[in-house]
């Protein structure tokens, strides 16, 4: 067992790696895992070499998360052999895994942050968990250690930020905190589960630089992502998981169509370029002179039925603010909204829903999932009045509605009575999107609907949005991912710092122009190094 220094030196500078790092290969031989009778990993054989980045790909439910949990000690009941540095390891808990040099940053950022502790304490959380050693805290030393740890990521947060409650961190900053923490123990294997899903592109670029430096330094990295561009830019090899087995293992150069085929089990074109874009005829909603961010110029926007409107913007560009105003969660500071020509001023989400405006919120776990509830009950919760007579719920109506949603979006679930928690992230999202679409809304607003959603689920959701538009409804998708927006939208609006920077139809725009509008003006704004409390989100 390697000793884990309390305050490790900056790994990016390449000094003081554990001496035996050249042996630090993590190998899996015949690793399987099942939940009851449900086999989620089957006989997995993999080697993670030092100084290389292995991308782990797979559709939702392919077994990626289970594999990562086994490696990081969170699934101690795997069968088969995992060896670390040539020796068989019993990865019985995350602490054991960490002491063996395996660190993981999990996808659900909220799980990695302890609200109530300061940002600095969250960075140093492993010390707090370390028993008696370091039981006495020294605030100044903590701040210094936290600064050192964050400097590895090129972050220089002020003491004021380090001393504030981690509860107030924005999701992207929280992500960086968990990453800084994982790197503190100078691991030999670093597992990153969709680390960029909450990051702006500038933050992601900085992360990539860090990862390249760490790789040069001899670290083995497992990188899970759904974004092929990132993998192309970063990975040395790609492992594709499907149905719990390793489908393929390829080195550079990557044959993407083959990889996609391995992943999805059917031929899917990598880039779905829109050749034609529908033009909406009817005005469904109008946003008139509404400022999205404090101090920003007011925004006016026409939302038309018959088209899918993709709104592209970085975190902090005002996307969520716009979504919340439309969905009745927040009231506009100024300006007016109209819906179907009538004034529209929802005071709460219920008003919006009754007016035919539905919102798929940004944070699925926190804002949409009811823990322990069945798929059917999750689907019917906004429509309880329709599902009941004289206030009494009709099971038949509930089941029928749920079955329709499950069929419509190809939700992979045993039955509509399965707990929603048992579904993979992509299928949970399908349930959440599908339930709103089942109301045939006039306007569907989807805030980052594809976060942690595999490509097949994304296409499924995109197709349903097109269907909604074809039948005269309006769909608004807000995202910070250019490819997602290009894939689903007829019309594209780029939002920069609360202001519309570009508005045009997909077939008249090219990627370069979009990216230019998207990034050009934001360079100064996106180099955010100090987190501010999230706005408009109830904690």
């Amino acid at each position, binding site marked *: 067992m390697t000793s884990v220094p309390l305050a490790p030196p900056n790994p990016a500078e390449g000094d003081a790696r554990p001496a035996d790092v050249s042996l630090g290969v993590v190998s899996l031989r015949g690793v399987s895992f099942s939940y009851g009778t449900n086999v989620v990993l089957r006989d997995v054989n993999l080697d993670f070499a030092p100084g290389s980045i292995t991308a782990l790909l797979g559709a939702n439910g392919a077994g990626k998360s289970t594999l990562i949990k086994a490696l990081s000690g969170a699934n101690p009941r795997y069968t088969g052999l995992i060896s670390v540095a040539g020796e068989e390891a019993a990865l*019985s*808990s995350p602490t054991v895994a960490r002491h063996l040099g395996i660190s993981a940053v999990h996808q659900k950022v909220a799980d990695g942050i*302890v609200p109530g502790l300061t940002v600095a304490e969250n960075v140093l959380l492993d010390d707090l968990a370390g028993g008696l050693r370091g039981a006495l805290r020294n605030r100044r030393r903590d701040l210094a250690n936290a600064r050192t740890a964050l400097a590895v990521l090129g972050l220089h947060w002020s003491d004021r930020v380090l001393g504030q409650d981690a509860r107030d961190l924005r999701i992207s900053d929280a992500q960086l905190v968990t990453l800084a923490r994982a790197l503190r123990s100078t691991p030999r294997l670093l597992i990153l589960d969709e680390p960029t899903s909450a990051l702006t592109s500038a933050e992601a670029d900085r992360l990539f630089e860090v990862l390249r430096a760490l790789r040069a330094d001899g670290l083995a990295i497992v990188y899970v992502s759904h974004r092929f561009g990132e993998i192309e830019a970063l990975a040395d090899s790609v492992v594709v998981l499907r149905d719990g087995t390793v489908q393929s293992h390829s080195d550079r150069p990557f044959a993407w169509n083959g990889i996609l085929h391995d992943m999805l089990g059917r031929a899917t074109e990598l880039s779905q370029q829109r050749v034609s874009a529908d033009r909406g005829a009817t005005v469904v909603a109008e946003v008139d002179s509404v400022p999205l961010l404090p101090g920003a110029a007011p925004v006016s926007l026409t939302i038309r039925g018959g088209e899918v409107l993709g709104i592209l913007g970085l975190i902090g560009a005002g996307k969520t603010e716009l979504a919340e105003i439309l969905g009745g969660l927040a009231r506009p500071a100024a300006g007016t909204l109209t819906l179907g020509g009538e004034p529209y001023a929802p005071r709460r989400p219920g008003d919006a829903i009754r007016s035919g405006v539905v919102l798929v919120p940004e944070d699925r776990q926190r804002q949409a999932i009811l823990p322990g*509830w069945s798929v059917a009950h999750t689907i019917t*919760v906004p429509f309880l009045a329709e599902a009941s007579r004289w206030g009494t*719920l009709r099971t038949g109506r509930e089941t029928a509605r749920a079955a329709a949603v499950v069929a419509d979006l190809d939700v992979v679930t045993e039955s509509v009575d399965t707990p929603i928690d048992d579904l993979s992230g992509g299928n949970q999202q399908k349930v959440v999107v599908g339930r709103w679409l089942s109301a045939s809304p006039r306007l569907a607003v989807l805030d980052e609907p594809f976060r942690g959603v595999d490509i097949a689920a994304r296409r499924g959701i995109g197709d349903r949005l097109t269907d909604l538009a074809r039948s005269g409804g309006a769909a608004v998708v807000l995202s910070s991912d250019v490819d997602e927006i290009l894939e689903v939208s007829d019309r594209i609006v780029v939002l920069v710092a609360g202001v519309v920077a570009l508005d045009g139809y997909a077939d008249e725009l090219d990627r370069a122009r979009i990216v230019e509008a998207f990034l050009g003006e934001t360079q100064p704004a996106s180099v955010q190094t100090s987190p501010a409390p999230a706005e408009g989100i109830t904690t």
Partner: protein
Amino acid sequence: MSQLPTGQGFSAPPRVEAAIDRVRASVGERVSAGVVRWGFVAVTVLLIAFFAITEPNFRTVDNAFGMLKFIAPTAIAGLGVMIAMTVGGIDLSVGASAGFAVSIAAWTMVVGNQVGGVAVGVVLLCGALIGALNALLIVVARIPDLLATLTTMFVIVGLKLLIVDGKSISSRMTLADGSTAPGKFTDDFLWLDRGSIGPVPVPVVIFVLLTALLWFLLERTRWGRALYAVGANSEAARLAGIRVQLYRTAAYVGCGLLASVAGLLLAARIGQGDVSAGNSLLLDAVAVSLVGVSVLGIGRPNAWGTALGAVLIAVMVTGFTMVGLPYYAQDFGKGLVLLVALLFSFTFSRKRTVVVAGSMTN
């Protein structure tokens, strides 16, 4: 809402942690879902069988009704706590509310010289107001439920003592000015305890009716579903169009009403405005509703489970008394029942338990 992050093993050293995991896993497998589901029912049935065999006095219809009558106020207050728990809250003021109801009922009849019906109306109104006060503190002032209802508890107990000058109120008592109180506990009021419908005592009828009503409300109506949604994830419920604040308010008002019903039954039983009545009700009511979460393996607050938990405690207390155990052994027994119930719902059950008692939601 703070949860320890997975992957950040806290405090326990790795080997201990792994051992705990192993034990939990093996016990979890052995204690199958069926045991979790029916274990408590089985224990209740076994206890009943045991006492019925060993104690001839236990196996009578009179005793059965007697036990149910005895536990009815506790059970009804427990149903109140259960409602607060469905929205993810807790109400620690139920005991104080019931005690307040006892004194107010007595005061209305004895000092105010009113009939029982009026007393019932006044008491129910007070119960609803206490619930509304709780809701005001929790929903509007956003004080955490545990602290808000603790405060209310003190306020109500204090208010009660001020109203009755710190004294128990009995029929035809001598008032502070030396005169005799004009009223008494009326017969129609006492009927709440001594009356019966057919062979069934009135408190038992009320207990069963309220249980059935709440079961129907929570499980079969959209309002019940919405209450559970608020408890499961209030933000998700709000985004689904549910008036979260309204439902939370309704839950606390409902809880206050049920606590005052419990108080009415206590007042009718005692036959006077005992100033200390209701003091012991809180812990039993909370225990019963917590037992209710685990009883049928449902994993969330529910009406039948709460009623069953109350029956179990009634059987235990009555049986132990008949066997000759001292009354002061009762709390120990109740504590054990609660411990086992909590082990079932939190430790052995695979199902996620959705009781967030005392959650600091804001």
